[in-house]
């Protein structure tokens, strides 16, 4: 079967599956639309959370980023998994016990204030929109690369599919399509990884393979360190970022993960409190399968690539080299005219530019795997992008229809009316996301990583204090959230987009990058919240009782 045909076939089959699930799981009440009727099994919810969480960036770009950064790439591995420990221990069970639909609903009720609710809605919208635009773009890119349609048509097809199952099924439809999408994406990620691990180290488990020796008896990582030193790159296993910055970036990603509304809301969908803990455990396990494989792929791909191209004759390059050159992801510029590829850490003599995405996308070809594996990879990348987009879409629509319309603007709206409002806001959110996917503003790529900083600086302290500090009142929480998110916005726009006079790396406060600054803004949020609460009136008695209640297990749960 030709490559094109197998890609259309496999992608078509997975899409038919998602649509089938959507029709089977139509939502008929707001309870089903927002939180899937609170009847999702913890293992299924774990899978859905994993698919929700792992975006096109995790699937396509992360292994490549790590393979260029070496040790410094660890910030993403630890940062994007460690947050689940915080979620399971500090947030998920209590928010599930609280038992409402959204994060702004918790903030609004716990801080007995519609101002707090509105601030939370805006924080949720800012975080979710920066994120979703990148996902729609990802769908378009995968389509154009594998299915030979242009990026815009790819975005339209993606919009159509997401729209269909998100509007029809709400959270219920999204949950079960995400379960299917997780299966597709993890299978697609692991198959090439296992093949390549066997090829390079004769160990079928990639996690062990990249700590083993190759056919020459030298440990793979020692070999790669040697190659790096030879070619003027810094050692693969040690980093070049400062320890302080690595510390702060990791913390910002972890805390940001725990504060992302589209992740938190997944824990509202299970039946009981103990299931919220369980599904956080399963979610992390499912995520860890990909996240512990990615650094292995990074090492395999890096070694393979250097072995194949370095100091080799350009005319002897395999066919995939030429193919990826056509897409612009690989560029060879024969500076000294000797027709031999010099790949070097020194920009002056380096002749090869490699896009990070190639490490995952070209892997099956480099390892000469069959066509169906390449087709599977396309379906997996689409599953990753679509599942995340759908999860974000739901947060946007429920923030608008439930927290803004139902709770603030028009409290007497009927359940039917609210359901219509939810579907309408999902519809407009898709249009807006699609617009950004087709006309990506320059800052999208830069802000996706910063969405974590925003979530860490705004939601995390307000939720944690709401549960663990009874005396936290509305004045403290609101001023903390507002100052936290504004400080983060200020720092990222100053150093990323050059607003407020801009600044270079040497101007960073305490040498902390904008990616790591979320941690600082979070600490400021905590300090402001607690100080303000000391000087203002304590929360009313019924709020203290609410907090007491969410801390305890239900009487008759099992």
């Amino acid at each position: 079967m030709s490559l094109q045909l197998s890609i259309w076939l496999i992608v078509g089959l997975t899409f038919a599956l998602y649509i089938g699930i959507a029709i089977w799981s139509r939502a008929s009440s707001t309870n089903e639309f927002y939180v899937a009727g609170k009847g999702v099994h913890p293992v299924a919810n774990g899978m859905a959370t994993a698919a929700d969480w792992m975006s096109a960036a995790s699937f396509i770009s992360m292994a490549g980023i790590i393979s260029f950064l070496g040790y410094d790439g660890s910030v993403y591995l630890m940062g994007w998994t460690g947050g689940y420990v915080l979620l399971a221990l500090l947030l998920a069970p209590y928010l599930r016990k609280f038992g409402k639909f959204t994060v702004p609903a918790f903030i609004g009720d716990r801080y007995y204030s519609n101002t707090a609710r509105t601030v939370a809605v805006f924080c949720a919208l800012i975080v979710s929109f920066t994120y979703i635009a990148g996902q729609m773009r990802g769908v378009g890119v995968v389509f154009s690369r594998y299915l030979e349609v242009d990026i815009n048509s790819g975005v339209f097809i993606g919009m159509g599919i997401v729209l269909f199952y998100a509007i029809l099924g709400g959270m219920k439809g999204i949950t079960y399509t995400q379960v299917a999408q997780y299966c597709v994406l993890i299978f697609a990620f692991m198959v090439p990884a296992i093949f390549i691990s066997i090829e390079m180290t004769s160990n079928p488990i990639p996690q062990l393979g990249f700590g083993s020796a190759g056919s020459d008896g030298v440990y793979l990582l020692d070999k790669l360190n040697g190659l790096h030193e030879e070619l003027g790159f810094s050692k693969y296993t040690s980093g070049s970022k400062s320890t302080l910055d690595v510390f702060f970036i990791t913390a910002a990603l972890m805390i940001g993960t725990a504060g992302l509304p589209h992740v938190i809301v997944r824990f509202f969908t299970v039946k009981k409190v103990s299931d919220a803990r369980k599904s956080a455990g399963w979610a992390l396990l499912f995520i860890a399968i990909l996240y512990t494989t990615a650094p292995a792929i990074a090492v395999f791909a890096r070694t393979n690539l250097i072995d194949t191209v370095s100091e080799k004759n350009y005319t002897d390059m395999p066919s995939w080299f030429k193919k990826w050159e056509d897409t612009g992801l690989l560029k060879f510029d024969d500076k000294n005219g000797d027709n031999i590829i010099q790949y070097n850490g020194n920009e002056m003599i380096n002749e090869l530019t490699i896009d990070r995405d190639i490490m995952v996308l070209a892997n099956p070809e480099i390892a000469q795997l069959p066509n169906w594996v390449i087709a599977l990879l396309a379906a997996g990348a689409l599953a990753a992008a679509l599942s995340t987009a759908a999860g974000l879409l739901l947060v946007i629509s429920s923030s608008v229809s439930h927290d803004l319309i139902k709770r603030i603007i028009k409290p007497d709206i009927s359940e039917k009316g609210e359901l219509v409002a939810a579907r309408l806001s999902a519809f407009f959110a898709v249009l807006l996301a699609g617009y950004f996917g087709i006309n990506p503003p320059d800052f999208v790529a830069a802000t996706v990583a910063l969405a974590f900083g925003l979530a860490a600086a705004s939601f995390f302290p307000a939720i944690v204090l709401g549960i663990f500090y009874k005396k936290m009142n509305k004045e403290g929480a609101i001023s903390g959230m507002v100052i936290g998110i504004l400080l983060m916005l200020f720092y990222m726009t100053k150093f990323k987009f050059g607003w407020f006079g801009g600044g270079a790396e040497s101007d960073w406060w305490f040498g902390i990058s904008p990616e790591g600054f979320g941690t600082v803004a979070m600490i400021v949020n905590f300090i402001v919240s607690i100080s303000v609460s000391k000087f203002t009136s304590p929360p009313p008695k019924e709020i203290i009782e609410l907090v007491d209640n969410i801390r305890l297990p239900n009487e008759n749960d099992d």
Partner: protein
Amino acid sequence: MNKIKSEAYWKKNLKYLVILLSIWFSVSFGFGILLVDELNQIQFFGFKLGFWFAQQGSIYVFVILIFVYIYLMNKLDKNYRSRK
């Protein structure tokens, strides 16, 4: 009486949180970041130990921590309900 039980439950929960989060902090921020250069002197199969903690070990420990917490809390919940 109920109040005492509730307080005991919450105290125990907080104790678990402190212990588990200390481990969470040590394997990632401790072994994977602050002490990485020292641990990299130790060879662990084909890995330098600090590098292994940063890219593999910490993630395995995270998964184990959550499942340990699930186990502990399920036991604590059961205990809390039966003493009521």
